């Protein structure tokens, strides 16, 4: 994805190992002295063949495969898939199940944003903020573990509903945790917006105007920091967002500082939303019955992941396995924006600018199309698996 004409200047390769976050991606920055004049990105180091894998598994088994696309936003991936399958089967999840889905999704957003806050601070050399925010993130991880039974892959969703209920005891535990988190989040907001050394790394760095954000197709908090009012929870509400609307957080400046401010404000919004849902929990069943064979048809579903719009396309041939599942993750949409607004900044700012969009490399590496002249071949999942084993032997 080259953005500008590569000139005869010095090119600094960064990655594939540890370019900014601890995930593989390769970047080439053309520099003139210290200033970056062009940037390009190469992805595809963690391609795992998940979409192909889904075609070989039943609808139920895919819940757990798709959950593993991303370790941070595991729940929204499944929500997108499960709601799409429910649409195909014309089954409506009970209101209580939808409320629980939404609570877990918002708790996940909290842990994702807090993780990002720490990582971004670390990239900026502010390790005390990194360590304290990650210490506090343990609170929300404990909440998730207590309500679901696992810290990372909560497996809250099943086709037609959710697995577990949130009783009064769990409710009190969540509320107690949120109280602590809210106090800490306000504290971090103060630090991020007042600490002079940190502001030096974020203010007016990586600025993206509203027009640029729309033109480059940015999504999620990255776009919202540039003043684009785009939030699937608001524009196409799903699950319990229909009854419990969210306030879309935007900022006008569009620089790194705005991305910090937007995400921290989103944390506060998530606390408010979880409290509201917990106060007005609908009563009823946890799951609706769903057939093992899903009627033939195709559908799409969009959800708002912590990083932005997540898109699922699901096609059923009427059997117990899907015919095709296509996933488009938010990180993919944000890459073009990051390599465009990197130009003109110092090389030292690159890790922070990269981290600023909260990229998730494993998320977006899903398909590599190899084009060979006069050669076309369809691989089965087993072929792919054997190829993978042979390739790394």
């Amino acid at each position, binding site marked *: 994805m080259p953005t500008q004409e590569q000139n005869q200047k010095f090119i600094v390769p960064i990655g594939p190992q540890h370019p900014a976050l601890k995930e593989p991606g390769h970047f080439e920055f053309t520099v003139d002295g210290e200033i970056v004049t062009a940037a390009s990105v190469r992805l595809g180091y963690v391609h795992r063949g998940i979409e192909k894998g889904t075609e070989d*598994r*039943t609808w*139920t*088994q*895919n*819940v*757990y*495969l798709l*959950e593993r696309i991303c370790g941070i936003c595991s729940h929204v991936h499944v929500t997108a898939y499960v709601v799409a399958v429910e649409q195909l089967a014309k089954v409506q999840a009970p209101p209580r199940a939808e409320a629980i889905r939404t609570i877990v999704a918002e708790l996940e957003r909290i842990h994702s944003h807090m993780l990002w806050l720490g990582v971004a601070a670390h990239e900026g050399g*502010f390790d*005390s*903020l990194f360590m*304290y925010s990650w*210490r506090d993130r*343990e609170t929300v991880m404990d909440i998730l*573990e*207590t*309500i*679901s*039974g*696992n810290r990372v*892959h909560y*497996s809250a969703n*099943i086709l037609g509903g959710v*697995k*577990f209920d949130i009783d009064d005891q769990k409710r009190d535990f969540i509320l107690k945790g949120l109280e602590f988190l809210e106090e800490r989040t306000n504290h971090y907001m*103060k*630090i991020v917006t*007042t*600490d*002079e*050394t*940190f*502001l030096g790394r974020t203010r007016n760095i990586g600025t993206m105007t509203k027009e640029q954000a729309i033109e480059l197709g940015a999504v999620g908090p990255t776009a919202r920091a540039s003043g684009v009012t785009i939030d699937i929870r608001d524009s196409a509400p799903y699950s319990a967002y229909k009854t419990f609307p969210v306030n879309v957080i935007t900022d006008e400046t569009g620089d790194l500082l705005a991305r910090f401010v937007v995400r921290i404000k989103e944390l506060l919004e998530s606390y408010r939303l979880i409290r509201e849902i917990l106060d007005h929990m609908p009563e009823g069943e946890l799951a609706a019955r769903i057939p093992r064979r899903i009627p033939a048809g195709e559908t799409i579903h969009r959800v708002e992941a912590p990083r932005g719009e997540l898109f699922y396309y699901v096609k059923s041939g009427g059997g117990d396995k899907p015919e095709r599942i296509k996933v488009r993750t938010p990180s993919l949409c944000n890459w073009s924006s990051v390599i465009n607004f990197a130009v003109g900044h110092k090389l030292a700012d690159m890790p922070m600018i990269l981290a600023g969009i909260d990229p998730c490399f494993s998320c977006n590496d899903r398909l590599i199309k190899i084009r060979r002249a006069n050669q076309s071949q369809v691989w089965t999942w087993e072929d792919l698996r054997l190829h993978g084993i042979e390739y790394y032997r």
Partner: protein
Amino acid sequence: MAIGAMLGDILRSLFKRPVTELYPFQRKPAPETLRGRLMYDPSKCSGCQLCIKDCPADAIELLVVDKVAKKFVMRYHEDRCTFCAQCVQSCRFSCLNMSNEQWELAQLKREPFEVMYGRDEDVQFLLERAARAETGDVECGA
């Protein structure tokens, strides 16, 4: 505008104990809902094999000793298990559950990861049969 906005936190922490848990000397009690090792109760099992059908990781096998008398042995591959609890959800007779006590599952060898659940005499019977059939035993081959 300030410099060192986090100094307060850092200074306060100087007089506090580290937040790091001293595992394994101090163990935090696991939450009740924790999904640890899978447990199987053979007395309630009807042998419908829905759990096996739904398992995303091929972690469970059901070995039939006597179908009529409902004698089953479950071979559970702990190393393959993803601890998603779909089998617990799928089981209509609640003979599966995930322990919140047994979660320290690291082993030095591969063999202990293969767990056999069932009545003692059934497990014994299967093991003996596997030992007798030296090679090529499809059903119980290790």
